[in-house]
């Protein structure tokens, strides 16, 4: 059951460059999307979210883009910093129908090299 897919398991970028993390979803009921960052031995930390009524949401160095027709979202980190090295999870939920669960992708490991 892969309703949320992060097809690339890892990404390596140089400090200062852009990191682009991709996520695809299959469930048309999803209308709210979140990105979480996870360091080893810690829980997922909420990073940024976007509602399906928007196509872009920006918070500092982090921007999330949503393409509803393609059922695709991406997280851009500009400029990337070594402290951004972590596993990034895409998650989705529906704001309709009362379901409260977040459905997660498998995660992508980002390494930012100094």
């Amino acid at each position, binding site marked *: 059951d892969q309703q949320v897919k992060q097809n690339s398991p890892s990404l390596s970028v140089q400090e200062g460059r852009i990191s682009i993390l991709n996520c695809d979803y299959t469930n048309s009921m999803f209308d709210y999307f979140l990105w*979480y960052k996870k360091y080893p031995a810690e829980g997922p930390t909420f990073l940024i979210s976007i509602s399906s009524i928007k196509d872009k949401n920006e918070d500092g160095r982090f921007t999330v883009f949503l393409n509803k027709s393609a059922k695709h979202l991406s997280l851009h980190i500009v400029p990337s910093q070594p402290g951004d090295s972590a596993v990034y999870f895409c998650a989705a939920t529906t704001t309709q129908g009362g379901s*409260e669960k*977040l459905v997660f992708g498998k995660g992508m490991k980002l390494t930012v090299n100094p």
Partner: protein
Amino acid sequence: EPEVTQTPSHQVTQMGQEVILRCVPISNHLYFYWYRQILGQKVEFLVSFYNNEISEKSEIFDDQFSVERPDGSNFTLKIRSTKLEDSAMYFCASSEPREGGRAYEQFFGPGTRLTVL
């Protein structure tokens, strides 16, 4: 900054034993959740809890699992008779209310690593 806390950080138990995992959600949050992550797999939803009752549960959350909010601060997950396949990281999360319902951003604790031998 307020955060979700979980105890213990690591629990080792024998198959068939009962375990209780404890969580203290963020104080003004009203919605509580348990998720788990088996090594190498996705974070999976187990159960959500609101207004002192389960509001949603997954297929994983069978009769061996139960949740409780025994007082105004703690939220617990009990596994009555643990199996080898229950070995995983268990994350507690909470979210605040917002006008018209819940907020969708969930804030996670650091997790409890459960090892069933």
